[in-house]
């Protein structure tokens, strides 16, 4: 089966090339067929490989394929190679499966768009790069995918290019991601420097070997540096503090794109990368502490920012940032499988939420403001039910998927093996954030689907349920939001139903085996007693119910006046949160403007003295330039240039002599 791995990325690539090069001449039917089926084929191939993988012994579930030798430099040899183990298997199933559903949904949502072919070409390109990211057998192939999905997301955010907003948002996403990539690349360089390789199958055994020999102690500085640098990359791609700012703006793109790229797949790449690197992270507990702390902070603050947003997609955007925080809490407290579990369930329910919001926006003729909605439940029953399922899932109520994954993460955080005290704090923050999540998600449901319609008459007239190619994916995703969590039922609950096994944990176990060995060897024994576990689980459910009740009280019982009253009473807090703590403005002031002005300064003052005639003595200069070429020698520029050369040479000489 390992011979066929390359087919998974190949199909979307073919789709991209056909639609991208010839799509302009095709009808929409052919474009949709090519766009969807290529991803569908990838999904089918993935299923076959999965079946084959399951037939192997759990310890030997690693398939590799090397296509060609890519480059070799300085003892480092990098191949274009793929690797499938349970972790990448799960990821590729999510990517192609959810990706396929969203492609199908897009055939309905984007049908009216004039550049339909371009949209599908970009979408296929995204799936191709995402498959490279997930399947890559070394960090460099992962990096190709890593950059490629960024590029695809940049193109898709700016897809409509109607407003300057989209283009700016796209550029912001790309530049912020580049800052993250800076850390990622440095991490790779350092890894290559330390281990002499970038291939997963070389680096991790090498690290373990060095660790067992004692030459790479736990928390050794170089390892912490590698992990932190890689995490900088992850904060960029997966929208964590301090680089989360691009994700909410990225919602300017088409809604299915938000669902696929900015919720279900691309933004989770950072979580995948950390889980993939679990051996190194486990050997660097300080880095893990940083990951978990930043993740907890992100989970909480992003949740608070979601509370006051009125744009339906912005609410979901901040909730995505917040949920990514939970995933990072999972991988940060060495519960790698729990992070991946939440990644999977989140892909289901968040894709569902976004697609539902797309359905709502579609019905509202493009209006995204929740203040204009209300009472849509009657008009759009399927959208309402599916969205309610997904909302229950994200709020963490049993038996929906989010309950199991979030609870697993928070439970593991409570017993963080390396830093028990910090773990308890992270648990507390995470649980509080979960309550806020339940609050703002139900605020969204109440404002959108309940009460009376607040939009214009014209909008009301247009309200309709979406066509089948949009609702069928919704229903599938809603069912997955309900049942998806049952793959990872904790032992505590499982034993009530005749010892239901934790399927997912067992499946992923071989990937994280070494890490759990190291943890059990070095850390405080972190197992908590059964009553404590029950208490934690009950607490998170109670907190979620409190959040929902509060939302019900404020937006349903006193729907008319109370929100305004509260806003007036706590005007300062309201403003600060409404403006997202002014983080964008602070960044603009502290980072963007200084770089720009520094550039202008260097250019105009330190360099060149400005020739184009816009400067202070511009007009005079234009007159001069027309009069005589010889004058050029007298205008000072050439002398300055020459002087710089002379100064440069004399400096070199002085260095040589007085070295």
């Amino acid at each position, binding site marked *: 089966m390992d011979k066929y791995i390359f087919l998974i990325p190949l199909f979307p690539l073919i789709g991209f090339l056909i639609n991208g090069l010839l799509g302009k001449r095709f009808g929409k039917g052919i474009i949709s067929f090519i766009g969807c089926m290529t991803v569908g084929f990838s999904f089918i191939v993935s299923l076959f490989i999965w079946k084959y993988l399951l037939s192997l012994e759990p310890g030997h579930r690693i398939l590799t394929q090397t296509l060609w030798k*890519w*480059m070799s430099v300085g003892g480092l040899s990098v191949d274009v190679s793929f690797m499938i183990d349970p972790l990448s298997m799960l990821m590729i199933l999510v990517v192609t499966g959810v990706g396929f559903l969203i492609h199908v949904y897009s055939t309905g949502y984007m049908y009216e768009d004039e550049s339909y072919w371009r949209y599908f070409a970009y979408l296929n390109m995204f799936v191709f790069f995402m498959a490279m990211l997930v399947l890559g057998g070394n960090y460099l192939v992962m990096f*190709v995918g890593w950059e490629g999905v960024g590029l695809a997301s940049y193109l898709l955010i700016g897809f409509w290019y109607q407003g300057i907003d989209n283009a700016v948002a796209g550029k912001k996403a790309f530049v912020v991601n580049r800052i993250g990539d*800076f850390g990622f690349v440095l991490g790779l360089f350092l890894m290559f420097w330390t281990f002499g390789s970038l291939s997963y199958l070389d680096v991790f055994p090498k690290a373990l070997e060095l660790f067992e020999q004692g030459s790479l102690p736990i928390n050794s500085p170089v390892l912490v540096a590698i992990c932190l640098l890689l995490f900088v990359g992850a904060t960029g791609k997966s929208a964590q503090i301090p680089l989360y700012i691009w994700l909410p703006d990225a919602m300017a793109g088409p809604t299915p794109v938000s669902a696929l790229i900015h919720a279900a797949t691309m933004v989770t790449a950072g979580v995948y990368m950390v889980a993939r690197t679990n051996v190194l992270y486990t050997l660097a507990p300080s880095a893990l502490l940083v990951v978990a702390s930043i993740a907890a902070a992100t989970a909480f603050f992003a949740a608070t920012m979601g509370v006051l947003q009125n744009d339906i997609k912005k609410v979901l955007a901040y909730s995505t940032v917040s949920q990514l925080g939970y995933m990072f809490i999972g991988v940060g407290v060495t519960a790698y499988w729990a992070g991946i579990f939440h990644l999977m369930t989140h892909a289901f329910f968040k894709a569902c939420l976004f697609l539902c919001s797309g359905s709502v926006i579609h019905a509202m003729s493009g209006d995204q403001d929740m203040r204009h909605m209300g009472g849509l439940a009657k008009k759009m029953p399927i959208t309402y039910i599916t969205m309610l399922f997904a909302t229950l899932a994200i709020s963490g109520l049993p038996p929906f998927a989010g309950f199991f994954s979030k609870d697993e993460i928070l439970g593991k955080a409570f017993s963080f093996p390396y830093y028990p005290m910090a773990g308890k704090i992270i648990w507390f923050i995470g649980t509080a954030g979960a309550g806020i999540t339940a609050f703002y998600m139900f605020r969204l449901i109440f404002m959108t689907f309940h009460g009376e319609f607040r939009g214009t008459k014209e909008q009301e007239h247009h309200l309709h349920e979406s066509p089948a190619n949009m609702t069928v994916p919704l229903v599938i995703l809603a069912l997955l939001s309900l049942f998806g969590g049952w793959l990872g039922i904790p032992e505590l609950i499982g034993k009530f139903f005749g010892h239901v096994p934790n399927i997912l944990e067992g499946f992923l176990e071989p990937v994280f085996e070494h890490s759990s060995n190291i943890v059990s060897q070095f850390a405080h024994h972190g197992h908590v007693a059964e009553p404590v576990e029950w208490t934690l689980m009950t607490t998170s459910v109670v907190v979620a119910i409190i959040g929902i009740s509060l939302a019900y009280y404020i937006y349903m019982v006193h729907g008319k006046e109370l929100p305004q009253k509260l806003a007036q009473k706590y005007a300062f807090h309201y403003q600060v949160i409404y403006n997202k703590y002014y983080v964008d403005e602070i960044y603009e002031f502290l980072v963007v403007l200084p*770089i720009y002005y520094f550039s202008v300064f260097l*250019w105009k003052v330190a360099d060149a003295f400005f020739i184009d005639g816009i400067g202070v003595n511009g007009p005079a200069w234009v007159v001069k330039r027309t009069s005589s070429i010889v004058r050029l020698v007298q205008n000072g520029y050439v002398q300055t240039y020459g002087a710089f050369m002379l100064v440069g040479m004399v400096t070199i000489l002085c260095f040589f002599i007085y070295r």
Partner: protein
Amino acid sequence: MNNINMSFDLYHLWQVCGGQLILIVAGLLLILVDIILMEKDQEIRGRWMGWLTVFIFAATIGHLACREWDLHDTIFMNVFSADKYSIFISIVMTCAGLLAAMMSIGYLRNNGLVRGEYYILLVFAVAGAIGLIQSVDLLMMFITLEVMSLAIYALAAFLKDSSYSQEGAFKYFLLGSFGSALFLFGVAIIYGTTGTLNITQMAQYISGGSYSTLPILVAFAMIMAGFFFKMAMVPFHMWTPDVYEGAPSVITGFMATAVKAAAFGVFMKVLFVGFTPILASSGQPDFAATVNLSALGPYWKPVIWWLALLSMFIGNLIAVSQSNIKRMLAYSSIAHAGYMAVGIIAANGEGRMGVLFYLFAYTLMNIGAFGVVYLIDGMERKAQDLEDYRGLGYIYPSLSFLLSLFLVAMAGLPPTAGFIAKFYVFAAAIKEGYFLLAALGVLTSVIGAYYYLRVIYLMYMKEKVKDVERGPIAAPTVVALVIAALGVVYLGLLPENLASVANLAQQSLAMIF
């Protein structure tokens, strides 16, 4: 190795200097052809001259690539040498000439500038560049450097009606003379101290223990300054934006690649052959393994460390605030010089190989970018502002796609040649422990991504500022652009082939004598 090779016969000359011979003879013949075509229609004249030049460059590449690859030989009492290193760089430069000549056919017609001397100057420029890279003798280096530079000065000033072109070329000429004077003065000091102009004999003298004496250090600094000028390294870079902006777009592309390749190539040669005493005293052909730069290394390494850093930072930072695309690319070329210099600092085989690879990759993407720039320009300076690129993605999808590809490659995104090239040089530097420099270099490439990307993002925005009409597209330009684009992608996916050739080339530096 110290014997002067006195033998001379025509076959020998052809084997060693074939490339130069073809270009010089063909260049002289082109003058005759130009006179014959004087009476003819502009259109016919331009086409004949252009295609002949393309043919000449193609023939030169053919000769260089097909000559006996393992032959290492010298001629004219060790003035010129033929070795894999110089042949590799000669091919890079002739490729730059070939692509530039193909684009020039359309460019000159669009600008109403069809004149025979343009092509003749181009041929002589490449002939000079090949001579420069083949020189082992410092004086011949100076002469061939001037042959190349004089042709380039004239080409830079080729837009007679444009004050920008005149001004830029004049500055280039004045400052270039200054740079050459520094170089020549350094050479004179070398001769006065060591009694030789041959770099290997000079190395032998220096290895006698006098490497740190004052005259040698002064000469070293001056020679470095002369080369840094041509390489456009900060602070010897200030002419670059003015000249690149003013010169005809195709010539700018040629200057940024061929001249840079020549300067980097010959600088590495002087550095690793001439100022590497250990090599000369041991005479080991496999010096790549035994190289020890301990003698002069502590002198030049910190210098290039700082200049590379400054070039990367200043080039990238100033490019951010440029509004003219040619000026922006000029600053970007300063930054690229900085990246290449990182490979030199590594001073190991991987680093030199990385620089050679970088030169080739940069040639493809840079000439490609300038090719698109001239097409969108229509006439020189009609549409060079970044604002003019707004919305072009919808009017000229293929051109915009090509420009995006070249810019993405320059930004160093995988899987393009630009990424691999940067990876090679940075990996080489890290191997030698220059982690800080590599880190800062990667940081500057983040800034670089910003301004390269801005062009792409402007092209794919719908609101236009003004209507831009591109010039008519000539067939050879299309071919050149497609070759460059395919090369950029090919080198990104399968870099190993070129890299192994470049590795052989850099190893042969040890064979130069």
